[in-house]
């Protein structure tokens, strides 16, 4: 174990019941199996046990778009990687220290990521000749020496599970289904995880089928006992809680999509406006629709529309009516919504457009991550149609980013893009639960009466008379007497909002809409430059925060001076950004696209920003980023 994966530090060793227990500072585990093997559930449970134990953690679920790809094939492999530690960590880890492979396909698909010396637990029952041939193995890797250098634990997981469940009167096939719980029990023993949570979870999940609940619990316990008794597992590991890494408070584990959903509910409460979600199912955004539809007792209305266009259309209609309106989607859905976003720009109504980015173009990679919708969010509309863009940087940060996007939308009466991605959406981390009274006040005032006096002294309501500071127009909702007015997508006369084709008016309105967005109050960029003498600034946005920060830490630990900054606001950009960029000899922009932010920075600030990109559907690995940054430093 000591040489496997990223260097692990063994800080102490003790002996329990005749077996050695080693203390580690962190571990990366990857569960891999067929899409039907329950690997995501297994990973979720191990994560939950780990969270309640108090480790810091970061997860990376990775699964195919197909619900059940053909069994035993490489495209059908689903995996879940979890990194947990006794200190503050930032990424789900580059390479696993432990791989659990439920079948030959899972082993083959993941082996290249596993460094020599790592532990591999394989379900030997699945290593039949036929199953191995399916993935192109003529001989068994368990026997032909190809796993030399790994610490392999061959375990007949299916047989052991069936044996453990023989009193349950289940068919071999049904009993075998619990093998993921056996594996979870084994790993839980190996890493001294608390088990009560998983048992309670199984009882509640199968509340209507107590036999199945009991069988799964039995399999889970059998896995634990197997670890404790078998000689093959001579060593178990402890990773102490990461208490010192966290500020005091109450914590929970949370995924990006859940945090984002909660952020929307919280924004609705803080704005004192009902939440209205118009949405059409699309991976990886659908979980937000599912989650919000559970919270009708918060006054949340969820509308599953006939298509993406109707999803945003209904949201815009609800915004006109005075709701905090949201539409959720992924890249292809944004393409369909573009025309309505343009209308929202013209109507100047608050609207949140949540884009959980995935690999593109077109259908692309529905279950994999990418950051390639930045320019679509910035410019993907006809005409001059500026839209603010906000991006969360970690799963838990999706909560705060949703509140911030709502603040901008409500205060400036504009559609706002919230750009999350598949990695943040499905990944999870500990979250310090905020006190409700710490949350920002998002209340806005609807227009109540006339806001303009005509030359003849008549008091009238002008729907496009702007607030002098924010340039926002009044939000006058139907039902308000005396403020009846008409708005639309045709160019409007400044002030009155009446249709106007006047050239000078159009020029004025285009520039005013731009000025409104440019003038949005966003905080200055904070640059982290501890030594103060860095020549290199690494700047990113969105979900690359974890890997970039981990890479920068490595460089600093090796004595390098590196400055780091991360953008939450992509439009408008922070006011001090140009100045900060100009202070550094080198600026590197790592992105999971082909250089979209770096293009914006170069265009806007005439800075020689260098792009470092990856578009393989996976987050950056810290080591690889560190190496790339090191090369920039060495080039000097």
């Amino acid at each position, binding site marked *: 174990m000591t040489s496997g994966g990223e260097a692990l530090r063994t800080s102490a060793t003790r002996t329990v019941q005749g077996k050695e227990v080693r203390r580690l500072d962190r571990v990366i585990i990857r569960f891999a199996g067929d899409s039907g093997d329950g690997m995501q559930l297994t990973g979720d449970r191990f994560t939950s046990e780990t*969270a*309640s*134990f*108090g480790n810091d953690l970061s997860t990376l679920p990775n699964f195919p778009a197909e619900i059940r790809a053909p069994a035993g094939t490489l495209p059908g492999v689903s995996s879940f990687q979890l990194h947990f530690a006794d200190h503050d960590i930032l990424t789900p880890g580059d390479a696993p220290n432990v791989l659990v492979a439920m079948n030959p396909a899972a082993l083959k698909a993941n082996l290249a990521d596993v460094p020599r010396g790592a532990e591999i637990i394989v379900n030997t029952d699945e290593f039949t000749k036929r199953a191995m041939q399916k993935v192109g193995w003529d001989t068994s890797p368990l026997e032909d020496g190809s796993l030399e250098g790994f610490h392999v634990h061959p375990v007949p997981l299916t047989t052991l599970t069936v044996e453990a469940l023989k009193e349950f009167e289940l068919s071999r096939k049904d009993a075998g289904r619990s093998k993921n719980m056996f594996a979870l029990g084994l790993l839980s023993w190996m890493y001294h995880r608390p088990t009560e949570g998983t048992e309670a979870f199984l009882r509640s999940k199968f509340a209507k089928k107590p036999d199945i609940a009991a069988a799964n619990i039995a399999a889970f316990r059998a896995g634990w006992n197997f670890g404790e008794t078998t000689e093959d597992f001579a060593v178990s590991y402890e990773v102490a809680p990461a*208490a010192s890494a*966290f500020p*005091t*408070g*109450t*914590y*929970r*584990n949370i995924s990006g999509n859940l945090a984002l959903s*909660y952020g929307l*509910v*919280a924004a609705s409460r803080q704005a004192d406006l*009902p939440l*209205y979600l*118009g949405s059409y199912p699309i991976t990886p955004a659908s979980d937000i629709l599912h989650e919000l539809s559970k*919270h*009708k*007792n*918060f*006054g*949340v*209305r969820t*509308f599953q*529309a006939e*298509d993406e*266009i*109707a999803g945003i*259309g*209904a*949201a*815009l*209609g*609800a*915004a*006109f*009516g*005075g*709701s905090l309106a949201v539409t959720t989607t992924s890249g292809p859905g944004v393409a369909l919504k573009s*025309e*309505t976003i343009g*209308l929202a720009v013209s*109507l100047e109504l608050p609207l949140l457009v949540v884009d959980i980015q995935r690999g593109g173009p077109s259908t692309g990679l529905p279950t994999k991550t990418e950051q390639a919708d930045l320019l679509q969010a910035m410019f993907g509309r006809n005409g001059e149609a500026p839209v603010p863009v906000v991006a969360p940087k970690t799963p838990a940060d999706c909560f705060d980013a949703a509140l911030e996007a709502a603040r901008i939308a409500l205060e400036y009466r504009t559609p706002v893009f919230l750009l999350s991605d598949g990695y943040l959406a499905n990944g999870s981390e500990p979250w310090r*639960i905020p006190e*409700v009274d710490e949350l920002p006040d998002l209340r806005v005032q609807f227009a109540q009466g006339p806001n303009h006096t005509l030359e003849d002294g008549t008091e009238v309501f002008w729907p496009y008379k702007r607030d002098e500071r924010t340039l926002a127009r009044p939000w006058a909702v*139907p*039902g308000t*007497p*005396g*403020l*009846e*007015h*008409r*708005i*639309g*997508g045709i160019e409007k006369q400044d002030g009155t909002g*009446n*249709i106007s084709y006047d050239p000078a008016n159009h020029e004025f309105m285009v520039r005013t809409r731009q000025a409104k967005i440019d003038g949005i109050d966003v905080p200055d960029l904070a640059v982290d430059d501890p030594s103060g003498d860095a020549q290199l600034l690494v700047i990113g946005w969105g979900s690359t925060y974890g890997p970039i920060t981990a890479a920068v830490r490595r460089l600093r630990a090796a004595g390098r001076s590196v400055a780091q900054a991360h953008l939450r606001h992509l439009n408008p950009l922070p006011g001090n950004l140009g100045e900060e960029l100009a202070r550094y000899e080198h600026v590197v922009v790592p992105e999971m696209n082909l250089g979209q932010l770096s293009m914006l920075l170069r265009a806007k600030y005439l800075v020689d920003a260098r792009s470092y990109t990856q578009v393989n559907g996976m987050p950056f690995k810290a080591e690889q980023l560190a190496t790339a940054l090191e090369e920039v430093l060495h080039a000097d």
Partner: protein
Amino acid sequence: MPTELPLTAKDFKSDQEVRWCPGCGDYAILAAVQGFMPELGLAKENIVFVSGIGCSSRFPYYMNTYGMHSIHGRAPAIATGLASSRPDLSVWVVTGDGDALSIGGNHLIHALRRNVNLKILLFNNRIYGLTKGQYSPTSEVGKITKSTPMGSVDAPFNPVSLALGAEASFVARTVDSDRKHLTDVLRQAAAHPGTALVEIYQNCNIFNDNAFEVLKDKQQAEEAVIRLEHGQPITFGAGGTSRPEGGGNHKGVVRNPQTGDLEVVPVTDDNRTQILVHDAHAASPTTAFALSRLADPDTLHHTPIGVFRATDRPVYDRLMADQLDAAIDQNGKGDLSALLTGNDTWTVKE
């Protein structure tokens, strides 16, 4: 202070100059709608007109209510969001044959099946007006237009048949020039809980003039128009319902016992009892659909007007609101702090 009632037609006229072509059928519809609005008994701040794009979709600018002129085809979707979040409002959609049936076809059918509380006025002039004269999804086969110099090869939609097929709970047809009939249909649509689709035959005097002349010319209309009235036998023709028995060309609609389909027959003493009595409230849309197929799409002979179908069905906005109430009954009013905390937490102390 809410607007004081009652209101008059004048209260519903906005200060904007109406910019349709002189002679356009839209003027008559606008006048009829403005004339009818006071009958709703609603303050004008509680009424919203939402439209898409096209000549007819300029309608909201001329109504002194709340209004939105949106984008092509999307008015039913936008209005659905408004109506379902604000059940207190009276929401009207104004659309055309291109807007509702071509680019916005999907939204129209889904609004109808959901039974959102929307009153949809579909101005059908069987042509694209604002883009200057291309054939529309209701244009007859063979129509020569700018985009079909050799005649259109597209089979048209029958909007009433389409709406009935889409589970509409209220479907009616009327004509721009018949103010009385138009107002009567608006009245019934307004009273209907749920989505009401009103197809209004509307003359485009620039690109498709006299398209409905056969229904408007008094003499031709006698043979062409079938006026549907709930509870009345479906008869028409020069004979008229008041004519002595057996007189003139009095015609009626009967069901063919062999095929089950409807057909037009001369009314005789022998078949008088077999003349179909119109039942707009029938649970099954079958007969309403058969009625919608009587008209010849080319000549418009045997065109029924009036309310084809008006049945009670749960209204979407109400169902949505009921679920919110039920959720509060079951789980109590949402507690944000409890939601954020969840069931699985740990505490870090100093």
